[in-house]
């Protein structure tokens, strides 16, 4: 399947790929370019990401499949320069490969209400 037809198929399924700018991460490994890796589904609902703790191995390629259910939340992982707007009803995918261990905070960065400040999580990269 060509990249174009694959994108069209994903669109029919309600899946939106984050733009290249937002999903180019961490890795910089050309080997990762064609890999989706493990898919981790994340639900964004006021005022919580579920799950809000994501554990991956150093060097592992994973795809975050983010789905907002009640508000146009944002997903921002600033240490890895990743952000995306989450449109309710669509799945936004972000592929990541972490090259260094650590704990990286992510948050909703579209103000969504009284407990917006609590809507955050942690990406944990183990060695």
């Amino acid at each position, binding site marked *: 399947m060509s990249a174009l037809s694959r994108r069209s198929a994903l669109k029919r399924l309600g899946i939106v790929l984050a733009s290249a700018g937002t999903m180019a991460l961490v890795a910089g490994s050309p080997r990762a370019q064609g890999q989706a890796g493990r898919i981790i589904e994340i639900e964004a609902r006021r005022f919580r990401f579920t799950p809000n703790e994501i554990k991956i191995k150093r060097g592992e390629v994973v795809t975050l499949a983010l789905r907002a259910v009640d508000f146009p939340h944002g997903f*921002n992982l600033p240490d890895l320069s990743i952000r995306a707007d989450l449109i309710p009803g669509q799945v936004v995918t972000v592929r990541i490969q972490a090259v260094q261990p650590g704990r990286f*905070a992510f*948050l909703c*960065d579209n*103000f*969504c*209400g009284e407990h917006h400040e*609590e809507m955050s999580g942690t990406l944990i990269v183990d060695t």
Partner: protein
Amino acid sequence: MDRRNFLSLAAVGGGAVFVSGLSGCANLGGMDKAANAANANFYFVQLSDIHWGYKGPDNPDAAVTLGKAVATVNALADQPDFIVFTGDLTHTTDDGLERRRRMAEFKRIVAALKVKDVRFMPGEHDASLDRGAAFMEHFGPTHYTFDHRGVHFVALDNVSDPGAKIGDEQLAWLEADLARLDKAAPIVVLTHRPLFDLAPKWDWATRDGAKALQILTPFQNVTVFYGHIHQEHHHMTGHIAHHSSKSLIFPLPAPGSQEKRTPVPWDAAMPYRGLGFREVDTDPRKATYAITELPVVRT
């Protein structure tokens, strides 16, 4: 001794005074004596992050804190030329009627201020859920300019867009507004969120703040006063100084100092610790700003 000299002495003596600006470097266009009179020193008061309507353990006195601050401002020996509230006047709510009720109550309380020249700005709690609709009904435009004794003030709105953006339209407005000014003109920017990336992982940033700073950078005397982070903080981006204000509801931890930006717990033994407001003593001819932090209640 005038107020300015007193503040200078206070700074030498270890008082809570922070002087911002490039003292002695400003060349404000060769002012004559008449201009000097018009550009005499003055001071204004900045209050921020009141969160009227908040109910919770981090400030069990939330229902009276604003009133006490108003009384403290009214008791200042010299009254300021004007007062500015840099956002989060109210605590957010999904209920539009309740939001308006809180704004009306806030207005009623601050109407007791002796100084009647009061400028209001929105925070994300006031404006992000309805793109500033309720705020504008009660307080007017969310971004505007005014001039006072030779200083050009610009109130920038980086909260009505829930994505913490100023937006291209407002940025164009800013650029057009500044285009008529001398590059040495004293400019004060008032805003809610920091214009620079202070702590993005805590949402302490403006997504297109760098564009605003790019527009401001050609001007030699720019100072930014903001709120949002519930604490005093001072930072330079190039030659532009940024000063955040304490809040009147609860303090927050130092930027990025811990994993979560949870409020500093209320200390019953020291009520209002970490809360307060500030005086900004302004010398338009030198484009300097002496900041004096004041508590909610003065003993």
